[in-house]
């Protein structure tokens, strides 16, 4: 039996393993023709938060979508098929990396335009409350999306109507290559803005999966009890380039030291270290999972490559339903 805490590690390992392998294929083959934003290094936010939700709770995300999708239980094969543009993809090849969805597990969709899914989550949360359902809507976004006016508008509306929504801000310090310093005034924070709008808000170490899970549980239960929205600002760090599989250590916008210090604080290593005293077999387990997920990912890739592309005769399908067009 895998303990609850070990399961968080396993989920992070799965995402890490899958993304690292996908990044290699992406780079080497040039066959996943969709702009892809990897979460390598940021796995604790997605895993910690999603582990605090039920299948009935809905999770939305922005462009950095794979980790929340997988953490929520999204189908890996369908994700990989989507990246390869195949009909079996979770969006049937129409959406690509930035538009994934797996309704069966409560992953309600991701979007490519910054900030969009923030207001959308508020609408879904409002619907849950209206129906008297004890469900919560969550929405992942970067601190860069918090620059957008719709973020403030959404916080405000959620607070006024005490909507069961949890705003999950993954603050990885950068918006592409723009540091926080050129985007937010010194001494301010995303959670501070949320508080000013009347939204309960917390700042959490986003690379500590246990802390994230604990905060997310509180937040989700707060929202579920009808006590209103919560914002979690999770400090984390992206290891790869903003988009695509590569490293960007030479792009000049962040120092090698900074990157290395965050890599040293790898959320998987940290969680494993923390667990070792209680679960001495954890390292072996991580190694096993790692192998297992490597196989799973390669298999998903092999399968995806063998799958057919969408039929171009169905190009228009879904834009309108037949009845109304």
């Amino acid at each position, binding site marked *: 039996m895998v303990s609850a805490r070990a399961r968080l590690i396993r989920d992070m390992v799965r995402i890490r393993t899958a993304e690292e392998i996908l990044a290699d294929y992406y780079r080497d083959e040039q066959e996943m023709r969709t702009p892809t934003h990897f979460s390598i290094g940021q796995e604790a936010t997605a895993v910690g938060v999603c582990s605090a939700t039920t299948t009935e709770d*809905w999770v939305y995300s922005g462009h950095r979508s794979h980790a929340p999708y997988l953490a929520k239980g999204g189908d890996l094969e369908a994700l990989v098929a989507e990246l390869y543009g195949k009909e079996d*993809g*979770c*969006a*049937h*090849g*129409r*959406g690509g990396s930035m*538009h994934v*969805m797996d*309704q069966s597990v409560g992953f*309600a*969709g991701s*979007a490519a*335009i910054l900030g*969009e899914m*923030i*207001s*959308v*989550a*508020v*609408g*879904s*949360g*409002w*619907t*849950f409350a*209206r129906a008297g359902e004890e469900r919560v*809507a969550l929405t992942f976004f970067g601190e860069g999306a918090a620059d957008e*006016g*719709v973020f403030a*508008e*959404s916080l*405000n*509306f959620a607070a*006024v109507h005490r909507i069961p929504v949890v705003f999950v801000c993954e603050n990885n310090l950068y918006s592409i290559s723009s540091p926080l310093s050129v985007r937010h005034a010194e001494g301010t924070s995303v959670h501070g803005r949320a508080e000013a709008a009347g939204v309960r808000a917390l700042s959490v170490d986003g690379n500590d999966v246990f802390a994230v899970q604990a905060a997310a549980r509180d937040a989700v239960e707060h929202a579920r009890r009808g006590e209103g929205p919560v914002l979690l600002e999770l400090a984390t760090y992206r290891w790869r380039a903003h988009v695509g599989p590569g490293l960007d250590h030479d792009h000049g916008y962040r120092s090698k030291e900074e990157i290395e210090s965050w890599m040293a604080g790898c959320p998987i290593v940290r969680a494993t270290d923390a667990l070792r005293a209680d679960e001495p077999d954890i390292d072996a387990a991580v190694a096993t999972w790692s192998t297992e997920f490597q196989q799973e990912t390669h298999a998903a890739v092999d399968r995806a490559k063998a799958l057919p592309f969408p039929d171009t005769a169905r190009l228009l*399908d*879904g*834009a*309108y*339903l037949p*009845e*109304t*067009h």
Partner: protein
Amino acid sequence: MRTLTYWQAISEATVQCMERDERIFVAGEGVDDVSGSFGTTKEAFDRFGPGRVIDMPNAENATAGFAIGAAAAGQRPLVVHVRADFMFLAMDPIVNMAAKWRYTYGGDKGGVPVVTRGVVGRGWGQGSTHSQSPHATFAHYAGLHVATPATPADAKGMLVQALTGDTPVVLIENRNLYQLTGEVPEEPIPTPFGIGRIARTGSDVTVVAASLMVHEAERAAEQLAQRGISVEVVDVRSLRPLDEGIICESVAKTGRLVVADTSWARYGFTAEVAAVVAEHVPHVLRAPVRRVSLPDCPAPVSRPLEEAFHPGASSIVSACLEVCGERDAALPQLADVSAGFQGPF
């Protein structure tokens, strides 16, 4: 059949649909107030209260996103903007999300049939940012339906269609239509989009119009009839889908086309209608097409400028005479449609 005003027809459609489908709710700035969005949301508020007729903060972007999120979760939102000009602030969610939702997630997971009503605010001197008609702007984007009901019956039927269909819909209503009366069925019967209407039959020239301009065209047709010119007026009813057939058939019959709109010519409604004819039946044209549209400047406030700015029946008369090769010297000017408008605004 009993008659209703255009605003009553909208109100009735809203209330009846809300009665039948509890997923429907209304959201907009001040939709619950005493004026009730020109009366159109008042009865709904009185009947269903603030839980279903929701006064929103002044946040058009998040309101549209909120509606999309509610629709994704199974609700049927009806968003109201008392000036269509405010919809530019909601352009991103409407065009980048609502229009593309079903398709982008694969086509099989349900869409977000958000209905957005925008009122063209032309009353008195509303000026450059309170009287625009953005129907063509939205209708350019695949994934939306865009309709411009001209009659009380269509105002009801198209809102019913919007609130029962599967597609996000933008409805643009001209404020000058609200007091118009007409026969309206009691039942909430949907008027399908994409089927135009011959508002008046004629044989010499076709005027294709939408919304308010259908009535201006009818007034123009009256006057031209006295002069022996027989005008057919085509009300497209919806811009997307667009009934190409009815346009082409009418022009094939008359051989002459005038297109009339309350927005600018370039890349607008008048352009599309002329293009449809050029694409399908150019050979039937016995005269160049004429477009009746706004002059290429923003809307001025000052009364004489405003009257010169907005095209109306007289401009349509002139255009029809021109395509028929006649002069308009002899005809009296028709009063502007807003002539009877009473302030304060």
